[in-house]
């Protein structure tokens, strides 16, 4: 297998993960499930990011470290927001948010 086929293989894997994550985000109204699906999309983005910047390996690694740090922080804030929402709504369903809040 040559480098081009390898590159296309990595791209297809990343795209498949992104599609599965998008399916998860759009098909449910449970906020926790939406968060998990967004994390699937993040894994896809990280994979594609590493592959796309592979011509500059040190830069790619450094940017990936930035990416993982920021996403980890984002996860903690989102989970904190969901905990606060759950205390009020007693549910993780997003329907009440769409209807104008709890």
């Amino acid at each position, binding site marked *: 297998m040559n480098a081009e086929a390898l590159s296309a293989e990595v791209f297809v894997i990343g795209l498949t993960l992104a599609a599965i994550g998008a399916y998860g985000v759009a098909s449910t109204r449970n906020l926790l499930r939406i968060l998990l699906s967004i994390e699937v999309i993040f894994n896809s983005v990280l994979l594609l990011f590493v592959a796309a910047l592979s011509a500059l390996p040190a830069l790619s690694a450094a940017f990936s470290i930035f990416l*993982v*740090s920021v996403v980890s922080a984002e996860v903690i804030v989102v989970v904190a927001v969901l905990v*606060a929402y759950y205390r009020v709504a007693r549910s*993780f369903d997003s329907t009440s948010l769409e209807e104008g809040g709890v």
Partner: protein
Amino acid sequence: MAGQLGLEIGIMGGLLAVTAYYVIAARDLVYASVALALLGSLNAALIALLGYPIVAAFVVIVYVGAAVMFIIITISMLGGGGQEKREEFRGMFTSLALASTAFTVAVLSGIYLAYKPPNTYSISQISQVLAGRYLPALGVVFIALAATLVEAITIARRAE
């Protein structure tokens, strides 16, 4: 060598796709979040196979070890929040729209050929990049992470 690497990456990709589907399809959110931890670990293994072991270690330690564990513990304590309603058609439509758009853009731009197995690089090169040209960005990340911590504690304690 490249053929064997291609096979390994293909197997890892298949496992990743199955695990990702389980994350969104599992009825119990605790199992789904555990599957997310497995997905992160498999993704780290794939990144290591692509020639980035330092990034892979960082993903396992920071992302799986901290962020995903935080999700697992939270979901275990709160539960799943009741019965889920599924809108299969909307999900399928969004997924196909995203995949076809990304595929078209990638084919037109040729970005799907961007990956080349990296030359050897060391952790000192990465630290030179981080502590040299991108030191201001690193400082901003440190401040943002500290602010995030305070923000999360504030939000979580607000209702008390």
